[in-house]
């Protein structure tokens, strides 16, 4: 089996290394990265410590979606060939998730929010890039409100056919048809089993 894998030895992050909002205590915030937090983030008592979306925090009633929320939704998707999640394999990375405009700025719930997720396949010729992208798009379309438009791309230069894969993943008609293909649907379902 191992010989059949596209990438038999990917780099794997442990769960504690993954970006998360729920960091407890000062120990996880002692690195050099956090030194500027007091400047970057406004001083207010956020219950979870640092909050990456800097301009919000007042509306506790309905908390707007941010990149960390999107990360949490898709980082737990399983890789189709490795027994790890897309987060652990760094296929999904927090800095490569962008929301535009920030949902915190919206007044009308029907206003569109574009979620751009750039994926980094584990190796250059990953034949399963399309399936991974499909699973990410599926997961987000199933869980996000209907005013979110999901754009899933291969990070430029990471994949031999990244433009083609990106174009396929952006094509609503192809995505719809792919999800009516039993084999593909089963693969995607299996990948999404590990999502909470």
């Amino acid at each position, binding site marked *: 089996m191992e010989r059949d894998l596209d990438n038999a030895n990917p780099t794997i992050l442990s769960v504690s290394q993954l970006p998360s909002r729920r960091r407890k205590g000062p120990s996880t915030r002692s690195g050099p990265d956090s030194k500027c937090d007091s400047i970057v983030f406004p001083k207010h008592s956020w219950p979870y410590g640092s909050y990456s979306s800097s301009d919000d925090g007042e509306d506790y009633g309905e908390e707007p979606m941010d990149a960390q929320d999107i990360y949490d939704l898709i980082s737990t998707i399983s890789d189709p060939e490795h027994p790890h999640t897309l987060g652990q394999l760094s296929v999904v990375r927090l800095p490569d998730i962008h929301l535009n405009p920030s949902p915190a700025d919206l007044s009308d719930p029907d206003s*569109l929010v574009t979620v751009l997720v750039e994926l980094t396949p584990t190796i250059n010729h990953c034949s399963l890039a399309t399936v991974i992208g499909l699973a990410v798009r599926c997961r987000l379309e199933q869980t996000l*409100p*209907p*005013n979110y438009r999901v754009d899933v791309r291969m990070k430029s230069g990471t994949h031999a056919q990244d433009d083609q894969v990106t174009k396929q993943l952006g094509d*609503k*008609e192809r995505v*719809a*048809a792919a999800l*009516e293909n039993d084999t593909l649907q089963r693969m995607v379902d299996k990948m999404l089993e590990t999502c909470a």
Partner: protein
Amino acid sequence: MSSSSPPPPPPPPQPADTNATSKAAIITPLSPFQPDLYQRAWSSVPHPTLPLLATAHAKSVTVFSLATFTKHSALTGGHARSVRTVAWQPPRGSTNKRLGLVTGSFDATAGLWSFDAERGAGGAGSGDALEREIRLERGDDDGDDDKEEEEDKEWEFNLVLEGHENEVKSLAFSPGGQYLATSSRDKSVWIWEDVSSGEGPDDEDEWETVAVLSEHDGDVKAVAWAPSHLPNARAGVRRGHYSADVLASASYDDTVRIWREDADGEWVCVAVLEGHEGTVWGLQWETKERSDGRFPRLMTFSADGSIRVWTLRVDEEEEEEHGADEQQEGNTGFRSGFGSVPNTMRRSLREDWDCTAVLPKVHTRDIYSVSWSADTGLVASTGSDGLIVVYAEDESASQDVVGTTAEDGTLGPRSNWKVLGTVTNAHGPYEVNHITWCKRFDPGAERKGKEEMLVTAGDDGVVRPWQVRIS
């Protein structure tokens, strides 16, 4: 608006007059078609004459009455996967009043269906009777559930067209109904010819493949035949190169291709239209007759968020020949399909199509659908951003430019398009997949059967009519 009647010095006020550029479109929602379909609706196609609208959604088609905005009938059980596209079959023969519909599905097949109106109406075999029956049937209908089974029986699945390797994305009948074009993710366009007799209600459907066009490098998203009822649509025939039918196809490869049947009966690509920077989702022919008498233009729309207008380039010399031809034909009343120019003297088979206009950019994401009204010439677009945009061409401006551009012989008349009105969030937060101009037959119409409304179909499964008033 009509170019055939001589314009009197003070033009009479017309409700749908679009000449003045200062006008605006007021687009207001009407009550949606019932019932709600709940799943993504891909497209809604009005019947060319009857008050019926066919909407493709999930694995079926729901036919709505345009008189009552309620369900008329349904086509179910013919396809294993989603029905992506649907087209009404032009009437065949003089005695055959059968209602025909064709469906294109992700299951890689196309299906031909018929609705036996004669049986339904108790033997009254005319189109008028069918129309009456459609209206009457809806008049006293409150219990959709009771009638559903009965309705479903009225549509018969007659024939399946197999051949495509992947999803069928689009299909279209040629204006005379002789040909059906289907397109697919397998990068090909198939042309099928109707070889059934076309007479009698029990006539068996029989279609043959006459061409497989595989020059596109990606999914063929849409096919559309040029209108042939207009006098100006016969330019190619006059040139003596081709038969009257002209097909255009739009593709995932970002291009549009124009196809014609040559004198040897071969379907050939005569032009490749390049300019879009993304998947070309579809195309619309100009079906309103042009005041300058030229060949219908083609409008294309794309994932790049733009709408382009393309014009067939006609060189002066050739145009003079046409004039002569026309006079001769007028005298004899004879028009040959392939003209009289010998093979060896024919010009190149290639046609030159120029992009002569880009409509004002309003959409921020994929444009999934555009409709170009045959009546008013107004254009409506919609797409992923949930916007409806209505545009009008300032024809007086375009005519001013004709004189200057015709001299260099390379540019057709330049057109000048303006946005008349927009609707944001037409289907709330959802994407809108389709838009079409459609005649009104509902009690709220001011001019029943003439006045046009818009109908949109969205990911929310709602099919929504819109009143459009130009003021």
